[in-house]
């Protein structure tokens, strides 16, 4: 029995050139960042550079995991994103104010993850679209009602629904892009679409941070996220928009004004995801959602922008490019 081609790992001579060079570029950035992390303690011995060193080491691990999953094919990519969803949801439900009676509902919430990604794996995209936003949205609160604890009922239902949408449903879009057939995304295949989504989202995070550090003066959300500035936002917006406009054509089936729409809106979505999660963390009274990723914080801290950019990127590509849905 031969596996259908999309099930098999990508042979190395069949990696799309854009994906190969994109990964090579990330490798160069990692080497440069690591060199900086190793050199800075020599140049500025007085300051503590532990955080930068940890951050860079974690970037290596994250890049290796994502790179391996993309090269192994879409089932591995779905699996990796399901694991990311689980860790993010676990962090969120552990910090949110749940009640003692909700303990087994937390377990049920985790079971939504294999169902959500399973629907993608068997190509039931139509059911996937409504599974969490309609069915768990209704039946989750019903189960909470059957528990019989009415104290904080409404806010508890909101916590479960919000966590499932951001950590599971929205992240599923990023994983499903890996399933796009080569005919629909001839530039670098589905893996290339996922790669460029992650590249643009993380580049935006880094660019907004660096512009803010270098030039930031006017606070944009002083109460929610006091480190965010207009200078950081605009500098990051311009950097990411240029990246998408000039590098995007190697990965995306978008050209002209649809590409411009994507370039202009992606950095805004990344910023929105970041600020929204900051508001959640401020409400909960924590700085990071966990310590899982040394130097970065929790998984949810790392993917906060992605919870907004993934559905936007997915739907803009669908809207502009695919005359009919690319999946069977």
């Amino acid at each position, binding site marked *: 029995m031969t596996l259908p081609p999309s099930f098999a790992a990508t042979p190395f001579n069949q990696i799309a050139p854009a994906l190969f060079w994109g990964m090579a570029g990330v490798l160069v950035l990692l080497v440069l960042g690591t060199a900086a992390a190793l050199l800075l303690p020599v140049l500025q011995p007085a300051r503590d550079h532990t955080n930068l060193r940890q951050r860079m080491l974690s970037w290596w691990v994250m890049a290796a995991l994502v790179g391996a999953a993309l090269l192994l094919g879409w089932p591995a990519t779905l699996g990796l994103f399901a694991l990311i969803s689980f860790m993010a949801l676990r962090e969120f439900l*552990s910090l949110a104010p749940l009640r003692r009676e909700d303990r087994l509902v937390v377990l049920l919430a985790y079971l939504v993850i294999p169902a959500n990604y399973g629907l993608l794996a068997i190509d039931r995209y139509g059911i996937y679209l409504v599974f969490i936003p309609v069915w768990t949205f209704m039946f989750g609160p019903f189960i909470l009602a059957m528990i019989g604890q009415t104290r904080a009922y409404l806010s508890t239902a909101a916590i479960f629904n919000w966590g499932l949408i951001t950590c599971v449903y929205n992240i599923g879009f990023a994983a499903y892009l890996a399933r796009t057939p080569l005919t629909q995304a001839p530039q670098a295949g589905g893996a290339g679409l996922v790669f460029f989504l992650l590249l643009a989202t993380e580049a935006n995070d880094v660019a907004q941070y660096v512009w803010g550090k270098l030039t930031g003066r006017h606070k944009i959300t002083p109460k929610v996220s006091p480190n965010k500035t207009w200078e950081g936002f605009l500098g990051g917006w311009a950097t990411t928009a240029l990246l998408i406009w000039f590098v995007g054509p190697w990965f995306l089936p978008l050209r002209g004004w649809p590409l411009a729409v994507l370039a202009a809106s992606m950095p805004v979505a990344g910023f929105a995801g970041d600020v929204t999660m900051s508001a959640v963390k401020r409400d909960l009274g924590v700085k990071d959602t966990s310590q899982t990723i040394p130097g970065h914080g929790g998984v949810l801290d790392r993917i906060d922008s992605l919870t907004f950019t993934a559905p936007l990127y997915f739907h803009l590509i669908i809207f502009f490019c695919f005359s009919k849905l690319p999946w069977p």
Partner: protein
Amino acid sequence: MIRFIFLTLFARPLARFMTGADVIGAEHLPKTGPAIIAANHNSHVDTLLLLTMFPVRLLPRLRPAAAADYFLKGPLIGWFSRSIVGIVPVERSQAGSGADVLAPMREALARGDIVILFPEGTRGDASDEMGELKSGVARLANDVPLAPVIPVWIEGAGRVLPKGAHLPVPMNCTVLIGEPVPWTGERLGFMAALREALLALRAKAPPQHWS
């Protein structure tokens, strides 16, 4: 050997999957034995977290103190408790009868082991209240002055597997490790200082508890 393989290849990944196994203050962990780890207790998960937070080379030294009446009651659980978890048995029923229930722990400390104990004596109900601390830890600190007493607060474990539950639910936990509580030569003052240290750690924990 079985213990080492079990703890590194099974218990560690399990702890990460079920709890995230975050540790704050790892620099306060003892680098060598003898030492006494004094932690709050809400779940069997506490022992899992305490056994997996240490560097691998200290694994052979780790000895959780555990109630003999509970953990040695059957041959299978007895074998698991002794050979895998590596418990020091405590005869709770003998306490107050004049028998020296602390002797096994004192011997373990004399061998240079790191004894993990729960001064509350039993698992609590994962509410915000910490139970009354039993003063055995003060007697150990008096008898083995070489062993520092290190306070550890575990947040969240009582939600993963509360007392009486059989089905574990993955939820993030945080282990907070404090500076050693010095033995003052006086039991009441020492116990008050230990309680203070544990409550101070609790105050720094993320809100991983029921509302």
